[in-house]
């Protein structure tokens, strides 16, 4: 099975433009919404998109994952994502329980909600970016101190770190999809975009 995968990569090198993202969060943190908003933003830039939750039973506080897939051509496949190009971590405390880099492509990107410097993370692969999305969320009145809603701020960081979805599209998608506090959410994304730190 492994062999066919590799073969396919070499074979289709130029053609593969599909980009796959995995979000890690806890139930109730809005990882699925983040995936959906990112998909919506990419869709507005003319991409075909899919967003889906980890197919499971979600409980408040338990680790969850969500996925986003985009491509310049129509997406047929309906499988889960095993080898993401990018991983987004909404809650850094998860990193001791979940292997967030699992399957991440060698040159993939990892965006972590953390006040630390990217260099402080030694993950063995991928390029790390950090953003203190918690601080930004609290500042903009998103959620509470103990339960900040960081899913829109982290998308600003995504835009900066990955660059394949413009911050303007993310702002637009936030305004369309956020159930409440649209403007605050948008601002949080923009601030995060500006403050994202890379290795």
């Amino acid at each position, binding site marked *: 099975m492994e062999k*066919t995968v590799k073969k396919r990569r070499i074979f289709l090198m130029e053609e593969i433009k599909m980009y796959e993202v995995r979000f890690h969060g806890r139930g109730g943190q809005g990882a699925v919404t983040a995936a959906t908003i990112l*998909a919506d933003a990419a869709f507005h830039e003319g991409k075909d998109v899919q967003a889906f939750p980890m197919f499971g039973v979600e409980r408040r506080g338990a680790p969850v994952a969500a996925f986003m897939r985009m491509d310049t051509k129509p997406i047929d*496949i*309906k499988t889960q994502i095993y080898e993401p190009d990018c991983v987004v971590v909404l809650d850094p405390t998860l990193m001791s329980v979940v292997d967030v880099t699992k399957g991440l492509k060698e040159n993939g990107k990892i965006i972590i909600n953390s006040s630390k410097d990217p260099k402080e993370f030694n993950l063995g692969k991928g390029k790390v970016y950090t953003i203190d999305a918690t601080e930004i969320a609290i500042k903009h009145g998103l959620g509470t101190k103990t339960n900040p809603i960081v899913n829109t701020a982290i998308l600003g960081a995504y835009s900066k770190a990955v660059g394949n979805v413009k911050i303007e599209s993310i702002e637009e998608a936030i305004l369309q999809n956020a159930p409440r506090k649209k403007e605050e959410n948008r601002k949080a994304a923009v601030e995060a975009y500006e403050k994202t730190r890379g290795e």
Partner: protein
Amino acid sequence: MVKKVIYGNHAVSYGARDSRVEVIAAYPITPQTQVVELLSEFCASGELKAKFIKVESEHSAMAACVGASAAGARAFTATSSQGLALMHEMLHWASNARHPIVMANINRAMGPPWSIWTDQNDSIAQRDTGWLQFYCSTNQEVYDTTIQAFKICENDKVLLPGMLILDAFVLSHTSEVVDMPPQEEIDEFLPPYEAKYKLDLDDPRAFGGLMFPDWYYELKYKQHRSMEKALKIIEDVGREFGERFGRYYGLVEEYRIDDAEIVLVVSSTVAQTSKEAVDLLRKEGMRIGLVRIRTFRPFPKEKIRKIASKVDMMIVIDRNISFGSEGVFYTETKAALYNEKSRPPVYGVIIGLGGRDVRVEDIMNIAKKGKNNKLEINKINWWGVKL
């Protein structure tokens, strides 16, 4: 026209809204709940002028739809697995009474053990209740099929209930781009339902009373004939839909089969993943294509025969199992071909029960095994079973 990134479940809700359903009766069950929740919002906001009966069970959901349809309303419900099974008695009722109710069923494996993930055993088990069955493979198709289903089922020549089916999570909870035409255009395509036979004060009749053996049999004949006639109506409606909205539908979808030696017979989302596999195998030089069975009831026998006559091998991939027999699409495909003078060997593979992911590599390896004569004939090929 609105293009939106929405869940498969919401594609059902929007489809029902845009079909201007008049009575909804539904009961929540994972993974269908979002269908019902969005419809309650539509009803609450006035966006949809429908009566929503929040019944106490699925048996009652279907029974309420039966009542509504008997009184001439366009009725709709949605369910999944255990709920569909609980409806079983009323599924016969809806069909035998010729009520063109439309229902969405989210394919979910039957318990026990409890599972919320996809396979087709729930809907396959209702095969013989006299419902049309459409297996959808994208959110767009889910939306489009909801609207078409009303038009097909309400056709005088059909007058049978119809079920559109989508995979749990892989469609129900996956957001994809869905294009929704303006309401006026849908209204033109799907005018209000005028029931030819209904409970009517000006023309009082009794429905469903005792019938002796001298006529019951004829009714069954007519019910079956309507199913057969539906074959053409489904194609006509799919074509008209295509002419209006640019997306064509039929009984089956053919993909790269023109010069194919090997044809995969697939359904639901497995078909979408299989398309990717076909593309990759073609690049490796294999002459392969696929046929996706969209309409399972009535079964498109003629289409299958025609495709089979031109190929060297068919591989049927089933995400269901008729215990003690084999995959049901496999059985039906073979049965359609049995009396043909020449027919290719047909292999049967079972895959992905209880929602196990079906990957591109799986489909590619199945095809390669077929090509190298490594699949077993006359036996089930259980793909990836750990035992």
